[in-house]
């Protein structure tokens, strides 16, 4: 390992932290959005505890929302990476089930905050 390598490592650390700083916005997520391939297949509020089923490439992907968090409960894939990922709750987090082509994001509701009638 030479000096340049050390320099590279330091640069990476700086870039990582600076991008961390910019990417992690302080917003709370408000809804769970599930995608199959690039299509939105489910949009549900993060506030309501419930279980949902998404049809993935290799079978059903069951997701659970509880206490403002979401996780993949059951899915059929070789390595079960996404069900092992556990809970996510912040608006920049996502669960990616590649073999099932399913992506679960927490997003901020761009819908209405309130309605007057």
């Amino acid at each position, binding site marked *: *390992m*030479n000096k*340049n*390598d050390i320099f*590279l*490592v330091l640069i*990476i*650390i700086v*870039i*990582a*932290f600076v*991008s*961390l700083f910019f*990417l*992690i916005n302080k917003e709370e997520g408000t809804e769970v959005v599930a*995608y199959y*391939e*690039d299509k939105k297949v489910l949009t549900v509020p993060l506030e309501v505890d419930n279980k949902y089923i998404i049809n993935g*490439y290799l079978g059903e992907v069951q997701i659970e929302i509880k206490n403002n968090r979401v996780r993949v409960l059951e899915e059929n894939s*070789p*390595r079960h*990476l*996404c*069900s*092992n*990922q*556990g809970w996510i709750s912040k608006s*920049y*987090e*996502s*669960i*990616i089930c*590649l*073999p099932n*082509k399913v*992506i679960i*994001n927490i997003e901020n509701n761009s819908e209405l905050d309130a309605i007057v009638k």
Partner: protein
Amino acid sequence: MELRKTTRLSMLLAISIILNLLENLFPFFNGMIPGLKLGLANIVVLFVLYHFSIKEALLISILRVFLMGFISIGIFSITFWFSLGGALLSILMMYLAKKITSLSIIGVSIIGSISHSFGQILIAIIILNQTAMLYYLPWLLLFSIPTGIMVGLFSQILVKHFENS
């Protein structure tokens, strides 16, 4: 291609597949961050890049992805494209790093590890139209340091060992 080289490359291809399978068998970082892995197969790629050239490294890498496609991840499956994207970008970047910078094999390995993540994220953006993985980039960058160093050290040992053969 001479017989001796062909045999060696075949052996290396086999080793890279075994390392790949091993890594999938014992998912060290399972479920922490999407896209995070040790990248053991990169030891072979790095070695080939240093011992032979980029042509052989590309050959081994592409063959590995295809064979892995047949063996476990499924040929032309979405995971397949992710692997291919990561592999190609990392070889290209490692080649450039080796050629135009004065980084040692360890630095080159770190570059490879990072560009592997980048490649996967690019594929995600292209195929899935998803930028969600971008959020994990900082973490992938940070993790690429220890994994890159480890892979680099192994490759360094190998390259030294086979220097005169």
